[in-house]
């Protein structure tokens, strides 16, 4: 007599401690092994693109903050860059340097959240608090500059809203000095822990060809072995003036492109960001940050697609202008939206506990996916 088995459908519902936002995952299970994962998104859809058609160009900037709320500086950076290229505005060099410093600080803060929550998902609760302790110092730096900890409205089209606080450079240097030993502590506690490596090595391998076909970019693509970083391959702002490396996944603890690689790339990227910030602070010139902001932003008719290197991948802005004060179309190409497409491929054949591990390693933010 043959046993009849059925597939069980388990819902990791919109409210769940480790889905990084409101995401619904429908898991089709055969015992503990996953046969299919169907993600359902749209719980955080706030109609950003429709709103932006009703507002003027500068009014869109606070809305861009709220998409990827863990990396707001980069959202604004991308939008401002797109508009400046469309209108042909040249910003002062000081503005470029400050934008780069803010962007790299934001990258470190975003990666700290990603690593901390990833450790908490795997079961190590302590690195989460260590990461957030360091992130508090970065948020303090942002707070003294523009008054807000998470959603800034700081990078405007043609410049910045205000100049740096007088204490900013001193505090940033202190932060860099204190952060380097903390990174080493994080590595000792989590990255090289034998149980953590067993949970994440060889799990959820993403081959580089699949990654490019699915449009995956950013740390996830670099962890699969491909050296592709928009800061070097399609440079913008003043990134070409700095000396830094692009870390690439090497399969140190398992196969190339597994969860451990994706995790460790982010740790190394934080080290590289520290290098960029140190160099930028030494080279920053003087200038007036608000001088190039035009009085009325009325771009010519046309369209542009610009992209920047978000902590999560390639963030693209496609703006169509019809010559009036309001945009005709603002489309945001969010990296997490694209990475979510490849997630079911990564999960097939693994267990329920691995779904959590893989989801944490691709580092998605629902605000970006749903906009």
């Amino acid at each position, binding site marked *: 007599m043959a046993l009849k088995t059925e597939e069980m459908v388990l819902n990791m519902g919109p409210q769940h401690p480790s889905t990084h936002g409101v995401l619904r995952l429908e898991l089709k299970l055969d015992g503990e092994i996953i046969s299919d994962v169907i993600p359902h998104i749209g719980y955080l859809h706030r109609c950003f693109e429709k709103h932006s058609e009703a507002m003027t160009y500068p009014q869109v900037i606070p809305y861009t903050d709220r998409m990827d709320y863990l990396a707001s500086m980069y959202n604004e950076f991308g939008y401002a860059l797109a508009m400046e290229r469309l209108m042909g505005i040249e910003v002062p060099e000081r503005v470029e340097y400050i934008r780069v410093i803010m962007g790299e600080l934001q990258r470190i803060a975003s990666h700290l959240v990603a690593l901390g929550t990833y450790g908490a998902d795997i079961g190590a609760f302590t690195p989460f608090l260590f990461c957030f302790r360091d992130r508090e110092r970065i948020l303090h730096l942002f707070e003294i500059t523009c008054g807000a900890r998470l959603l800034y409205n700081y990078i405007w089209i043609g410049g910045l809203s205000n100049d740096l606080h007088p204490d900013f450079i001193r505090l940033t240097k202190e932060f860099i000095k204190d952060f380097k030993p903390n990174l080493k502590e994080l590595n000792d506690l989590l990255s090289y822990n034998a149980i953590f490596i067993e949970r994440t090595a060889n799990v959820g391998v993403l081959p580089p060809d699949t990654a490019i076909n699915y449009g995956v970019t950013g740390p996830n693509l670099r962890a699969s072995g491909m050296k592709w970083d928009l800061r070097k391959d399609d440079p913008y702002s003043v990134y070409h003036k700095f000396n830094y490396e692009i870390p690439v996944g090497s399969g140190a603890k398992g196969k190339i492109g597994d969860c451990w690689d994706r995790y460790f790339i982010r740790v190394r990227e934080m080290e590289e960001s520290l290098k960029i910030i140190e160099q930028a602070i030494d080279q920053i010139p003087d200038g007036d940050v608000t001088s190039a902001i035009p009085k009325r932003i009325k771009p010519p008719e046309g369209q542009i697609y610009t992209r920047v290197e978000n902590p999560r991948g390639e963030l693209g802005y496609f703006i169509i202008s019809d010559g009036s004060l309001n945009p005709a179309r603002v489309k945001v190409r969010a990296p997490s939206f694209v990475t979510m497409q490849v997630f079911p491929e990564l999960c097939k054949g693994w267990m*329920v506990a691995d779904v959590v591990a893989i989801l944490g390693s691709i580092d998605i933010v629902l605000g970006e996916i749903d906009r």
Partner: protein
Amino acid sequence: MMYEWLYDLTGSSILSMFIVSLLPLFAFILPFALLAVLAERKVSAHMQDRLGPMRVGYHGILQTIADIIKLLQKEDLVPSATDKKLFNFAPLLVFTGSYAAFAAIPFSGAFIGSQIELGLIYIVAVTGLVVAGILMAGWASNNKYSLLGAMRSAAQIISYEIPTLLIILTIVMITGTLSLYTLSELQTSFFWNWMIFGGPDTGLQKFLYLPLMLIGCLVIYISTLAEVNRTPFDIPEAESELVSGYHTEYSGMKFAMFFLAEYANMFAVSAIVAIIFFGGYQSPFGYLGNTLELQWLIPIEQFFWFTAKGLFFVFVQMWLRWTLPRFRVDQLMAFCWKYLIPIAFVILLFAGLISLI
């Protein structure tokens, strides 16, 4: 000893039996569970570079009392599609299984709940009731997550009982007694008579036992960690995967019973490791009562040493919880069956050979 003293006092065997069995519960386990909840929060907070509860009482000492009052006045929700009898009975079973083990544990030379000759076997058997309780809780909750958690937990507890039993067998073979009271009395005088340093005999056997005992202590500590569902083996309660595992659907007093049962279980297994390997209630240096010629001081000192050792192992359990990530369920099973059980067998074999010398 306590039983006889009470029998002389009251003249009734039933009354003295009652008092002797309830005394560990009210005088020790419940206050310990309250203390352990607070200690866990403070210990974890200080390890994570923060402070923990600070407002209720001086530096948060009265926090657990506030927690218990909150749990007592919560609404007792029973979901409508559950199996009501099993749902209500499961926490009782888990609590009983954890607590009943304390009857055979000697808290000091003068107090033991029940002078049972089969102390060790009784404890292992009765903590097996917990598995039945957990399975009942998982099934009766009518919740896929609880079911998954309960099945994993049952598999885990049953698997990890085997290394525990093998190490206990080794100790029984070496000392020749199953009673915990006799085991503690054997490890008397100074700390080099403790089982972890080879036992009370002197001579070649002691030095040959030493490496086996050290590894054996590690094996039994790890397997009892898995039996009480603590990290790194806390898959049944894995918060990030299964919300809360088998006690997701419980609220109010029933949840409190699961909660207290977990801490009581933690102390029970720490106590067992302390008794088997570290001398139970014996002091490492000799007694103050002996030097001062005050005989009544000795049981009190013994009680103090016993509690100190138990609390130390509980502290190590908490330390491990907040440092290590958790295993996946198949890695956990592989760890038990492929590593711990062979090691335990080898220890049993060698201990047996050495005991023939």
